[in-house]
């Protein structure tokens, strides 16, 4: 039972901006750092074409150059500017992260809701499929898929989706089942609302928040999967620069120069840390508020 409630709706616009989630995150040191690092990666991806170098054109005379003003991270074994290659790699990392995450999110949401709200037999069937997928170790899955499709960006996206979607679907399913029993859903049913309406209006809005947090926290893992697969040669094929393949090349030629390896590893660390910090701060700020709001 709430106590007193006042017309405190009239809070100034300035106060609302100050209090908004974005500003609260920025005020936390971890949040500010996270935003900064992620911004670096995003800006890098956006401005990759403006470095003046091509990421794939060979320049054999400039092999293994140390970092300088001309080449911020030096050059690789084929004379290509590492900084440019890294920025282009950011596009792939972010692209995979968002596409794969997006597909997993939507797929997990839909399948989870169907499993949680639909008839028992459908639920059992879906669970069977999802749990079978979930029981594959990611690396073996990657190997098996690539054997079938050949290494490519799509293969990476597919691996990520198969690895993540079942977990998301399970979480959504559990939440859907809990929500199904709430009085406001019963109330909607008693009004005569059809199932699709109940799912869209009453259930989904209450699922999306927690799911977004879970998915955001997984982005670092997705980046790592992409990098890992490319490192193993299972992802994007050369000469397309992916951080993982840059790292792989760097590893092969580490006696010639350590910079290619650093150039491959550093962005992975920055991106993973940035998204992790951001995700954790986001979760800390959204979670308690969700509990209060609900």
């Amino acid at each position, binding site marked *: *039972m*709430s*106590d*007193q409630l*006042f017309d*405190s709706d009239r809070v100034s616009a300035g106060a609302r901006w100050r209090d908004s989630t974005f500003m609260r995150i920025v005020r936390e040191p971890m949040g500010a750092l996270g935003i900064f690092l992620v911004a670096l990666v995003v800006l890098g991806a956006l401005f990759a074409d403006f470095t003046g170098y091509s990421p794939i054109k060979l320049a054999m005379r400039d092999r293994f150059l140390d970092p300088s003003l001309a080449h911020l991270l030096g050059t690789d074994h084929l004379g290509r500017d590492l900084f440019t290659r890294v920025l282009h790699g950011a596009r792939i990392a972010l692209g995979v992260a968002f596409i794969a995450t997006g597909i997993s999110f939507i797929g997990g949401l839909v399948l989870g809701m169907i499993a949680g709200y639909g008839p028992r037999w459908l639920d059992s069937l879906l669970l069977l499929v999802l749990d079978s997928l979930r029981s594959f170790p990611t690396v073996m899955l990657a190997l098996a898929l690539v054997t079938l499709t050949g290494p490519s960006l799509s293969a990476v996206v597919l691996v990520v989706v198969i690895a993540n979607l079942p977990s998301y679907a399970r979480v959504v399913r559990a939440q859907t089942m809990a929500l199904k029993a709430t009085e406001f859903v019963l109330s909607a049913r008693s009004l005569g609302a059809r199932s699709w309406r109940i799912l869209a209006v009453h259930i989904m809005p209450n699922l999306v928040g927690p799911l977004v947090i879970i998915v955001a926290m997984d982005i670092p893992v997705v980046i790592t999967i992409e990098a890992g697969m490319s490192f193993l040669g299972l992802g994007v094929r050369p000469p397309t620069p992916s951080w993982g393949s840059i790292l792989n090349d760097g590893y092969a030629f580490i006696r010639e120069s350590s910079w290619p390896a650093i150039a491959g590893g550093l962005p992975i660390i920055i991106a993973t840390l940035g998204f992790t910090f951001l995700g954790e701060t986001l979760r800390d700020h959204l979670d308690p508020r969700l509990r209060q709001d609900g």
Partner: protein
Amino acid sequence: MSGNLLDISGLSVAFRTKRGPLKALRNVSLGVGKGEIVGIIGESGCGKSTLINSIIGLLPANAEKPSGHIRFADEEIVGMPEARLQQLRGERITTIFQDPMTALNPVLSIGTQMTAIQYRRTGSTAEKRRRAIEFLEKVRMPDARSRLDQYPHQFSGGMRQRICIAMALLTEPDLLIADEPTTALDATLEVQVIRLIRELQRDIGCSVLFISHHLGAVAELCERVAIMYAGEVVEHGPVRDIFRDPRHPYTRKLLECDPGRVLEPLARLPTIGGELPDLVRLPQGCIFEGRCPDRFARCRERPPVETVRPGHEAACYKARELVNP
């Protein structure tokens, strides 16, 4: 009122909020004698949770330091160091709450919990278990010995509340604070629990502070009662006086609203119109003025506490006039 076990005088507690300090309790005075059962009647927003938390020293982080005094036996609770508070809590002052399920740890058997709370006593586990069984039998739990090792979810709601009562009385405290213990129970169970509390109180001789908004429960159990509204005690006195001859308009309206009180079936039930006052921007004058059917010009100034008869006081200018026909 010396000689009381618990003496609250002039207690004021405010909370820090975005809009400014929220004055949850203002100048609250209340006494509980040794072995006495005192009730507090109040609806939502009256400040009873804040009052309980003040007595046991568990105010939330955004509470400013209380002003006023809470004397328990010979000690002052306001400003008491946490270490001493911990010695008092669970030993000399115990509490039971509205929802027994949240007070009991679901993953420990009740036997484990009931022996654990006796940690301050010396004695073997077997002795502590025996004492736990003794108290479970006092709360009339059948098969206490064999049920001692069961888990909270294996008991019904009424049984769980009895377990909580047993746990609260196990240490033979000086003061038992019961916060809405029967609100979540069916009426037939409420009767049993109230009778049980009364029996046990006679047996152990502790004082009881019984908070409820069930007027009937308070009438049944308590000797004296205080009526709280929006952070103040507006009236207090012996139960019989308060229920038979209420002198504060809020008390009068509250009793009027209780459907059990109204003997003839009515088409429209009485209510108290209006809303609770804003405790951040307090109104000047009487706290009940905005909703009071008997208000007049002087109510813009804070009313004094008028003595209706010895032991019965009400904070209203008209306290001595408002007599029932």
